[in-house]
């Protein structure tokens, strides 16, 4: 229990609780979940379903940030993977081909980022900025600048379907988190990631393949972005290469930072990112329910992130502890 209170995961969870209480004030049925046609319906289910994309993106971003990097290209990669899937489906290819190709596009994008960062030694912000600029252009080129409508019920299932009464996208996101947790925390690979993020030179002297680990982190992020792209495309049943994934890189980074993973790398908290992404989505949904249009809803998001940054800074902490010292003296 003590370990739980000391962990940074407490913050986003506390935020979630506060938001839930605020929401209950506006709408007493906020937490109510009903069963309709064997599916669960209700606001929390909605938040899980709509938040699935941010959850998946935040997962990939956590891995990259653990190595001390950042991936700005995830929004563009979402557009590319959505466009790939949509174009293949509309040209009569099968569902599995489309999905594999879309995931493949994400892996290739991740590889490009990884090679630029790990092998060419370019700063992560710049290296991924290149793909962020180019990716959206490529996606628009693929769809010819149009919004491609998808008419494929099984593809749509990824974004809107239900598995065991729960939204499929959310179930997929949770499975990915659990799998990543076991893959990273039950093996040494999580430790390797943190070592690379903490001190790449020392890690190399300790015999770690630093470049390969860094590269793989970006591949993981690219893959997550591709999955999120498929989810987003399936959710609206169309590949909109202009708007899909717009500003999602920021959401993902915010979720990770709110969840207590420092941008300096060297340590990561999957549970924190999960809670952070949920907190962000709940905040967005709350704005909808209160009647704030989505365009204006960025203000509370910005205030939240600034507050988190200031709270986490050593200066504020020193100031706080000096306050308490004076009182006890």
């Amino acid at each position, binding site marked *: 229990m003590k370990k739980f209170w000391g962990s940074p995961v407490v913050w986003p969870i506390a935020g979630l609780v506060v938001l839930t209480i605020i929401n209950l004030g506006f709408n007493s049925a906020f937490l109510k979940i009903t069963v309709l046609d064997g599916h669960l319906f209700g606001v929390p289910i909605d938040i899980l379903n709509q938040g699935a994309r941010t959850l998946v993106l935040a997962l990939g971003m956590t891995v990259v940030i653990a190595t001390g990097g*950042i991936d700005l290209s995830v929004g563009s990669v979402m557009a590319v993977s959505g466009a790939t899937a949509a174009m293949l489906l509309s040209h009569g290819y099968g569902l599995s081909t489309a999905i594999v190709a879309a995931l493949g596009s994400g892996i290739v994008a991740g590889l490009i980022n990884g090679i*630029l960062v790990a092998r*060419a*030694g*370019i*700063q992560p*912000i*710049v*290296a991924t*900025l*290149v*793909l*962020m*600029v*180019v990716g*959206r*252009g*490529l996606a*628009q*080129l693929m769809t010819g*600048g149009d919004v491609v409508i998808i008419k494929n019920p099984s593809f749509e299932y990824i974004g809107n379907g239900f598995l065991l009464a729960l939204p499929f996208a959310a179930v997929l996101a949770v499975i990915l988190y659990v799998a990543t947790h076991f893959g990273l925390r039950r093996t040494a690979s999580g430790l390797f990631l943190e070592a690379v993020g903490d001190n790449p030179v020392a890690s190399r002297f300790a015999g770690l393949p630093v470049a390969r680990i860094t590269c793989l982190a970006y591949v993981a992020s690219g893959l997550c972005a591709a999955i999120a792209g498929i989810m987003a495309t399936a959710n609206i049943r169309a590949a909109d290469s202009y708007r899909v994934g717009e500003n999602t890189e*920021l959401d993902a*980074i915010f979720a990770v*930072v709110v969840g207590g993973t420092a*941008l*300096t790398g060297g340590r990561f908290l999957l549970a924190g990112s999960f809670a952070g992404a949920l907190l962000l989505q709940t905040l967005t949904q709350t704005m909808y329910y209160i009647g704030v*249009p989505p*365009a*204006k*809803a*960025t*203000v509370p*998001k*910005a*205030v939240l*992130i*600034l507050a988190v*940054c*200031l709270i986490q*800074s*050593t*200066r*504020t902490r020193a100031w706080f502890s000096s306050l308490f010292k004076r009182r006890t003296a």
Partner: protein
Amino acid sequence: MNATLQRKLPQLATAAVLVAIALGASRMYEGFLSLRVLTNILTDNAALGIASIGMTLVIFSGGIDLSVGAVAGFSSILTVTLIEQHGMHPLLAALVSLGICTAWGLVTGYIVHAFNQPAFLITLAGMFLMRGCAYWITTEAVGLNNPMMTSLAGWELPLGSTFGLPFSAATLLVVMIFGLILGHYTRFGRNLIAIGGSEQSALLMGLPIGATRIASYGLSGFCAALAGLVLVLYTGSGNPSFGLGLELDAIAVVVIGGTLLIGGRGHIVGTILGLLVFGTIQSAIIFDGRLSSQWSRIVVGALLLAFVLLQRILVKRLKG
């Protein structure tokens, strides 16, 4: 290779690319290499150019400002709303939005410096905040009908018998000259580059690190707000969604201009050349007419990559 030449190499490379693109375009498209096309490039990219100059100053010190696009949108809609719906004098309205945006830039700089936070994250939050505030004023574009502003938008510095230099392009030129002087011929500019080169050394030399860094973010906020005002004149309206993606284009222009993103090395002249490269590519694609506009993003991305790799090789050689 002597040291001066090597230091100027990134800018020389940008100049070479510019000449190559301009010559290539003029061979393919008749009438491309003319004063009129150059004025058009300057006018169409005035907002981007102004924002890039501010961005260059921030990047000199090793920081980055992702909020410039949102600030430009905010200043455009704030100014137009103040003029059209509150009957404020245009000059006063412009001063108010320039003041607010500069103040916000200073606040950003203070948070980055005093709380030792990553510039990238704080300015990202600033981007969300300013964009949201812009939409809070109004979610729709507001047209500009004020006679003083419309006459200013139509004003041109006569260059030839048939065309002239519009006000926005003239503003860009003035900002460029100011940026050049501020960045390379004042103590402030040298301090900025010193901080970017090595904060520790700058501190030990007794340079005013905090004030210089905070001021650079203030200047970037000012430039971004000015870019918003130029957009108002250029389009004859204020729009909360102006400047979407402006920050990325500005960073691309700065990097193409040979300024190192880790700070401490670069030149305003490079940024001006980078802007011309950016504008020339876009004009050439428009001149061609067969290529879709998406290609300009792809070409700019490819150039960005090429220049980043070139910088990487240069830095390695300088160190080794």
